[in-house]
């Protein structure tokens, strides 16, 4: 499978990139590391007239500590750099650990943070060659009106599988977006529409320039657990981030964030599960209840790659594991 024809543009400044993108609107797409976009181009899943590379905007490749112990990460920072960063700040090393779980060393060398945040949702009926897809009517994600995964479904159920996103949301990260009119900042959680057809809330011409992670603060433990079918080079079957703060002495969990990836068309904030635990003393029974609540938070699970039952069991198991391990980190801090 070859790349389709497109014009390749390589601006040197963010402003220039912004101008090109506003000028070409829907006809243009940006490419950063290309580890996701190039595959989709080859499969003709997307066919932009222009591909605008962000790869030459070197001033977006940085990891800077921010006041108070947080960190600002440029959108073009390689996943590998995150993985290898000495320390991102107290309580933030989970980001490096999550980075190390993505794909393979080769892919991490090319893949960027911005590209991961904007990773399109996936489905094995959609991420296929032109030849393969043409044997069936186009599905919702391809602007058609059927879904091949959920027969009779009325929307797209493709999966959001970016590994960096659950821990970043659990850490309350926000993103800086360069728009044709200027710059705006939004909570990372708000970047996601939850809609498989168009999972990322960015308009044509908008690019992400930075991710800001606030200080974790004392007494906070965060983990990201990932289950994949194979031990390397594999998307998550389920990825769970849990960020717990509290006092080991009292055993009371003061605050908690649980975010689940690869179960829906966007990262799922398990607010039901959080409510079960917040302000309470952690007990095995409570964790079990929270895990059950998380399964409810996830809602509909579709059979992409696994059976529904298996995934449901894994959500439950990994949520309880994540809470326990995050609490362990609180206890030692």
């Amino acid at each position: 499978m070859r790349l389709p024809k497109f014009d390749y543009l390589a601006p040197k400044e963010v402003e220039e990139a912004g101008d090109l993108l506003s000028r070409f609107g829907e006809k243009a797409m940006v490419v950063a590391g290309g580890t996701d976009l190039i595959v989709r181009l080859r499969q003709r899943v997307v066919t932009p007239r222009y591909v605008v590379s962000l790869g030459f905007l070197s001033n977006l490749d940085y990891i800077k500590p921010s006041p108070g112990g947080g960190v600002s990460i440029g959108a073009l920072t390689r996943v590998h750099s995150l993985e290898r960063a000495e320390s991102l700040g107290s309580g933030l090393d989970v980001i490096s650990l999550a980075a190390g779980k993505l794909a393979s060393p080769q892919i991490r060398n090319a893949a960027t943070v911005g590209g991961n945040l904007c990773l399109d949702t996936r489905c094995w009926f959609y991420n296929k060659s032109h030849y393969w897809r043409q044997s069936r009517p186009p599905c919702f994600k391809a602007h058609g009106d059927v879904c091949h995964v959920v027969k009779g479904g009325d929307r797209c159920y493709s999966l959001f599988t970016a590994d960096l996103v659950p821990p970043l949301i659990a850490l309350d990260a926000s993103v800086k977006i360069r728009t044709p009119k200027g710059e705006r900042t939004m909570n990372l959680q708000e970047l996601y529409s939850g809609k498989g057809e168009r999972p990322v809330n960015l308009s044509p011409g908008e690019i992400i320039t930075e991710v800001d992670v606030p200080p974790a603060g004392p007494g906070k433990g965060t983990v990201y657990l990932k289950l994949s079918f194979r031990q390397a080079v594999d998307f998550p079957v389920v990825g769970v981030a849990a960020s717990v703060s509290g006092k080991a002495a009292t055993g009371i969990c003061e605050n908690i964030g649980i975010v689940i990836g690869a179960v829906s068309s966007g990262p799922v904030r398990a607010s039901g599960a959080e409510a079960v635990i917040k302000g309470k003393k952690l007990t095995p029974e409570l964790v079990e209840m929270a895990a059950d609540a998380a399964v409810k938070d996830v809602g509909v699970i579709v059979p992409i790659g696994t059976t529904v039952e298996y995934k449901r069991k894994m959500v439950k198991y990994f949520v309880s594991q994540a809470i326990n391990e995050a609490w362990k980190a609180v206890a030692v801090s």
Partner: protein
Amino acid sequence: MEDFKVIGKSVVRLDALEKVTGKARYSADFRVEGMLHASVLRSPHASARILGIDTSKAERLPGVRAVLTPDDVPPVSISPHLGDQYILCLDNFVRCVGDPVAAVAADTVEIAEDAVKLIKVEYEELPAVFDGEEAFAKDQPVVVHPDLPSYKVLTGMPIRLDPERANVCQTYKVRSGDVERGFKEADLVVENKYTTVRMQHCQLEPHVVVAWFEPDGNLTVMSSNQMVYDLKSVLSKVLKLSPSRVRVLSSYIGGGYGGKGGVRAEPIAALLARKAGKPVSLIFTREEMFVFGGHRVPYSIDIKDGVKKDGTLTAREMRVILAIGLYSEKGVLIARRAAAGAVGTYRVPNFKLDSYSVYTNLPMTGALRGFGCPEIQWPIEQQMDIIAEKLGMDPLELRIKNILNEGEKDASGMVTRSIGVRECLDKVSSWIGWGEKPVRPVGPWKTGKGIAIGNKSVIAGSTTVVIVKVWPDGVIELRYSAVELGQGIKTTLAQITAEQFGIPVEQVRMVSGDTDICPFDFGTVASRSLVHYGNAIVIACDDAKQQLYKMAAPKLGAWDLDTREGRIFVKEAPEKSLKITELFTPMGVPLEGGEVLGKGAFTGSSAREDPETGQSERSVFSYSHIANAVEVGVNTETGEIKLLRSGIACDVGKAINPLIVEGQIEGGDSMGVGSALYEEIVFNSSGGVVNSKFTDYRIPMATDMPLISNSKTIIVEVAEPEGPFGAKGVGELSLVSTAPAIANAVYNAVGIRVKDLPITKEKVLTAMRKSGKV
């Protein structure tokens, strides 16, 4: 023990430097002036009649040079055994998603791919059958090839249909003793059903071909094929050219595993080249490889074993259904070869096997490393563990008790010889610490150990020819037709040649990859190259040496001569010697005969097989043996399996180059791990391959194998009397028993048995929950 100069030494591979520096050339690096690029249109339906094909739009696309439709294709089968396959779909019917329908040659691949999309095909969709057992049933819902009874049988291999089952294109029987009596004698009868699934070879290099016609009308084809002479013969048939006018070239091959042993891309490229009047290159896409590059045949096996209290096997009965897909290709042969795997290890006094190759509306299957043998050990080696547990015996002891002895007849009537499986088993079981507790489990992980054994045979009755040329400076040239697909054959054959003349490997020149100068060979398949080439080389070298000695004898005044390091000397008086150079004129012409060319041909012995009982004194050329011992961790919460330790011992007769042999063993073992844990071609409800790319079809990574410090590769050498220096094959052996060893270890860890490959996390978890054991 003979003292060898180069044999048994791990000399550096001759292809190592060019490969690690990226200089080695593969077929796709090959360019011919004016070369066009081809793309194939494949059926989107699993079963349909073609009502019409409109190529006009494609033909009008600028840059398109030729379009091929079924009308252009000669009605000659490209399937080796049974006339059921044309170059493009057979008789205007498509029989699987992916069946080739048309092809285009154009100035660029992009244009060819675009043109393919412009071909309009009108189909009338027909019902299809996907499940092997459904297709096998007497009231099968769909007959895949209604004309099967009238298809031509193309080779000497017997094809036996089943008059009651319209989709069966081959049946094969083995009968020995009386199974009914055997089951009566048994104290315990264990009956189970097992299944295996389709896998893809996943060679790094896809199928590649460049075909062109020379000015004199001869055809030349550069191809990544494992069976160059077979390809030559098919091309000469379909193009109606004398075999003397078809030349097949080959260079390094980026992995074969049997998948490149048939013809796929070559005839399409050749016909397009003829139509366009220009060279045509065709390279399969990765998706095409997953869909039509060939799959391992999925088996469904019913097995019934009878055993006495003391563990003696009294009877074994097997019914094997091979769902081969839409064309017979190698599927009809695998039905026979699978039987060898079933009889080559254990003493079973009463044995009955029926295997059936069954058509379905799914893509082609064929050879995939092991040729049916790993699939047959999957049930057998799990049965042995089940039996052992029921009898309260150690699985190791049960196996040892039933292993064939040297000199005993196996269930197919062949006398057992050179059987090193006991030694393999002893070595791996002691390495893994059999009988000792597995590593301590942590958290949700439980641990367990498992063993399994097996065999892989070398095909009987096939032929290899080589030519050896002596150069004036003492360099020995070997002309041969085996292909180097990473297995190291080039180096190994150079070592054998060097040994014959007592020279270092650097003094051997290896010439291959051109049927115009290199003689006949059956093919680089069936683990056969080393044994056949080794024997042929010894014969050819002797022939060349005799020619040299004839010239040297008068000069040395003696007839009993030998050669070493470029000199010929009198055996009795080695100080009387001359340099080989002295037998040539200053112009480089030998004193006699114009050229010193030695010829060696070797045909592995074979014996007739009784069609009703499968009995034959020589059903295979030789057997190699293997034992695996593994230790796994199983996560009781997720069903994950981790291979913690893995020992593998292979009886290869003689390791000509031990490092190469280890490479074959370890590579095969990791492929076995893939087959055990991950690999399965998944189809959707309309017969299309769902996971036709590497992100969805998972092969094992380095992280899936145990650490090197936790793995052990052991070479066992029980000499095969007819093998060169005692050698037998190793290429396919190394993955035969990996999967059942892992399955047995999983059982040992968590008490559940997965009988259907692969052993996925989901299956493990579901089975654990059902059993209530964990």
